[in-house]
């Protein structure tokens, strides 16, 4: 085990911690949504500072490894990929924060029928499993697992597309409370965004392991 191996190992462990942290943030924001738990939503906002601090820590690690060890080949790709994955994870954290803000703004429980029609919990489960897939893929250099994320993103996109029509039909009902519905569309978009960010993370893992650039490719899997 070289000194560089140890540094890269630490970087990988810190990224896994970041995965776990943003996954927890997303889970709490969804629990807050389901139960209209304002305190839990506030906790997500408070913990966002930890996500930001972790992001800065990993950025600094990438910078130090590049400057001090001059990594090349697969090591260089790993550091580059980590740098970008870190940024995508922080954005997933932002999505959880955005969901929590919507909950606090609405200040009342969302209509359970609307949650069901929008398949919001299904969306969350897919998004969460995408984070799980990427975490496993990074831990085990498993690009098949990373590729599984692309199909799940297609499912999320499809649910997201249907959401606009569903929300529109709720808004057109008599005496509809518009603000919670607008907040709800914002929540759907944020979960869909988690899917996009997870796809980006998968691309980075594939770049690191296989040296293949999938960015902007239509056929990824």
């Amino acid at each position: 085990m070289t000194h560089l191996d140890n540094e890269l190992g630490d970087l990988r462990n810190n990224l896994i911690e970041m995965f776990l942290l943003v996954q927890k943030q997303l889970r709490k924001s969804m629990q807050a949504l389901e139960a209209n738990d304002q305190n839990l939503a506030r906790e997500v906002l408070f913990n966002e500072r930890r996500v930001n601090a972790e992001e800065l820590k990993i950025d600094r690690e990438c910078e130090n490894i590049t400057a001090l060890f001059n990594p090349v080949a697969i090591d260089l790709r790993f550091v580059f990929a980590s740098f970008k994955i870190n940024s995508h994870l922080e954005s997933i954290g932002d999505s959880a924060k955005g969901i929590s803000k919507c909950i606090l703004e609405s200040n009342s429980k969302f209509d359970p029928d609307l949650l069901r029609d929008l398949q919001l919990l299904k969306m969350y489960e897919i998004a969460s499993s995408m984070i799980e897939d990427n975490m496993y893929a990074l831990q085990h250099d498993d690009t098949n697992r990373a590729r599984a994320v692309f199909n799940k993103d297609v499912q999320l996109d499809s649910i997201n597309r249907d959401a606009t029509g569903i929300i529109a039909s709720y808004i057109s009902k008599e005496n509809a409370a518009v603000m919670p519905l607008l907040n709800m569309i914002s929540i759907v978009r944020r979960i869909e965004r988690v899917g996009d960010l997870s796809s980006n993370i998968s691309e980075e893992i594939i770049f690191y392991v296989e040296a293949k650039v999938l960015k902007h490719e239509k056929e990824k899997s």
Partner: protein
Amino acid sequence: MSNIKKTSTKRQSEIVSAESTTAINEKLLGKNPSKPMKKIEIKNVHCWYGDFHVLRDIEMAVDPNTVTALIGPSGCGKTTFLRIFNRMNDLIEGFRLEGEVMIDKKDIFSRELRVNELRKKVGMVFQKPNPFPKSIFENVAYGLRVNGITNKKIIAETVEHSLKQSALWGEVKDKLHKNALGLSGGQQQRLCIARAIAIEPSIILMDEPTSALDPISNSKIEELIYDLKQKYTILIVTHNMQQAARVSDRTAFFYLGDLVEFDETKTIFTNPKNEKTQNYITGRFG
């Protein structure tokens, strides 16, 4: 009407000049100008020191005006490979070579070729700076005098030009007749480069030219290599991976006498094809 005539005459001259450019390119570079003639071509080269098979079945082609880095762990054969091109290995007892080594399409091991002529064409810079115990001026002029040049003006001009090319002129122009051994290590190495280029070789071989130098001298030599490739084809043996990455266009990785991988330096250092290359450049063996 006269305008049309003028234009057409101008166009005709453009066509003629375009044709002649193509003709010149074809003459200089072969039929396809996008594929310039290789400066060095090596086919099926094997080398032995007595019974020890030091290089096995090496094939390589080097473009003119490029820098090729030769990397690999100690004892892999990279210095032996470098010394093929000025036939310095011939001086080692028991050395034997099989295969074809061509420089500018000429076999450098043919009976007709005179080794002294070859060494005029292929200069060499060694690991440790080795100036002669003479003045700075005489060090650079030495090769010219050995080659029978006696015209003082030509010698003085060549010395100045070579020292300028090796980025040393500014530092030594006022002390040309001082002993070269009084220069710093980095200056001595640049003086050796000036001495090598004074006789106008077309290839420069460098065997770990900066391994004995401080970081400032090191970076000056690297900048110099970058400038020199406009005029020369350079092969450099280095143990410094970052140096290979910085200065070379292509990199060859040798391991236990085999040429494991030879590719664009960018490819070698970002996505090497061979696992051994990857393990070596990432410092996991060697």
